[in-house]
């Protein structure tokens, strides 16, 4: 098992604010890797750095042997990094099927002009795109809802659809930003099982930000803890559970 993603000494400053400072960790291929930390610790900023929305102020990010920092977000996505968002960002006025097809079609590499000039192939591409996307939705239990507008789905299913859309990119690494946000404990348990299934079924490495400790401890092979933009601990769930600095970061240190 080798490192699929390496974050090497990355910093990101916004003016005087050091959102991430000299942070480094690596994600092993096949693992579920958790990132935890109090609010404002820089977890989502880290995701934005990995996916290319922000550029690191310093440091480098390496994915499957290639540098990611400096690449455009669309290039990074096509290298095999899918992502979901803390506040669901589906295309609510497009259908469920279209949401998945957009991500699937991005891998077809044909330009729209080319598509116009080669109509027969476009027909074949379209049929394949619909078939593959429908199969994915079927596997996710969303098959019956393909033609509904994404915005009309209940909250829990929107979360699921967002994961399906990310999987349609055929990623090697899936970044999940608080997938259990807004779910009750029963739903969170179901989500944990579901993410296990996604990981095996689609052979994808998971990197997730989460506050629900049951989910994190139950699912993750390894956990990185951030506080004020810095890594304060890393280890297996057992190691993190007993780590004094982690407990302090969450509950506040006793002041003597």
């Amino acid at each position, binding site marked *: 098992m080798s490192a699929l993603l390496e974050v090497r000494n990355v910093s990101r400053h916004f003016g005087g604010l050091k959102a991430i400072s000299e942070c480094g960790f690596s994600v092993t291929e096949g693992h579920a890797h958790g990132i935890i930390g109090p609010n404002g610790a820089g977890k989502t900023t880290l995701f934005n750095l990995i996916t290319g929305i922000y550029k690191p102020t310093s440091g480098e990010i390496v994915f499957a042997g290639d540098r990611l920092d400096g690449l455009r977000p669309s290039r990074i996505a096509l290298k095999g990094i899918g992502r979901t968002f803390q506040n669901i960002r589906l295309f609510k006025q497009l259908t469920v099927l279209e949401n998945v097809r957009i991500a699937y079609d991005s891998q077809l590499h044909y330009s729209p*002009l080319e598509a116009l000039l080669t109509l027969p192939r476009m027909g074949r591409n*379209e049929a394949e795109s619909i078939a593959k996307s429908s199969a994915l939705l079927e596997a996710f239990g969303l098959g019956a809802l393909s033609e509904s507008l994404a915005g009309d789905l209940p909250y829990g299913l929107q979360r699921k659809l967002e994961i399906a859309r990310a999987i349609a990119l055929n990623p090697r690494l899936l970044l999940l930003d608080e997938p259990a946000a807004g779910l009750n404990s029963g739903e969170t348990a179901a989500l944990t099982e579901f993410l296990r299934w996604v990981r095996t079924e689609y052979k994808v490495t998971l990197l997730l930000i989460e506050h629900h400790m049951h989910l994190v401890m139950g699912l993750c092979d390894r956990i990185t803890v951030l506080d004020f933009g810095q890594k304060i601990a890393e280890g297996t769930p057992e190691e993190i559970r007993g780590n004094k600095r982690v407990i302090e970061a969450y509950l506040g240190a006793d002041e003597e």
Partner: protein
Amino acid sequence: MDYFAQQAINAIQQGSIYALIALGYSMVYGVLTMINFAHGDLFMVGAFACLLIASFFPLPFIVILILVMLATGFLGALLERLAYRPLRNAPRVSAIITALGCGLVIENVVLSLSPYAKPMPPLFTVTGYHIGGLSVSTLQLMIIGVSIALMLGLDFLIRRTSFGMAMRAISFDAKTVPLLGIPLNRIISVTFLIGAGLGGAAGMLYGQAYPVIAASMGILVGWKAFVAAVVGGIGSIRGAVLGGYILGTVEVMTVAFLPSTYRDLVAYSLLLVILIFKPYGLLGKAPNQKV
């Protein structure tokens, strides 16, 4: 009744041209939430490109149409690349002023090359048909047919192709689109290419219908098509088409039944009334209300 039917045909012809132009405004607004005020001048460039090509190469109508659309399309995409893209994150008003400036530059380049209005030669022999009391010319049929074919083609492109899905996705949430592996800038370039190409086609058709063309011809027609796009619901593709046909109909019918000087007065008054009752336009959607 025959008189009315005759005017209805004229209205469809006029509306088709407005609709083709209005589409360009609406498509660009959809992906960038900006108004490309140079669009009326791209329409004018379409007419001049047609004149230029037709005077050197006696090509068939359809070939000239394709060349004109490519020429204006690439000019539109170039405009986006050189002038609008650097201002992508600038205040909207800067982008709008830039667009106005680009329009004036294009207009004055054409004016310096062609200071006087030029006659446009017909591209094919126009014959008139009389059916009952109606008279229809092959030119009218050509304008209406070409416009409708282009609009159907666009509708197919937007509803059925991955480019179209990406374009619709950008108009809802441009920030998420690149994270799904879609190159945002390429989709925006192609949107300009297609929008400007349709505007150029409209310019060519307009030049055939009113065969004297001048550098300033895009100003008023451009404004009117912009109004049509807003009345239909800016950002909405079908709204732009609807707005174009409504404007064409109101104009033609006003001239047909009232003194012709009332044309713009009646047309714009009606459009203002529509906007009072439908502030987002007829088919436009109000932005999601956040509570």
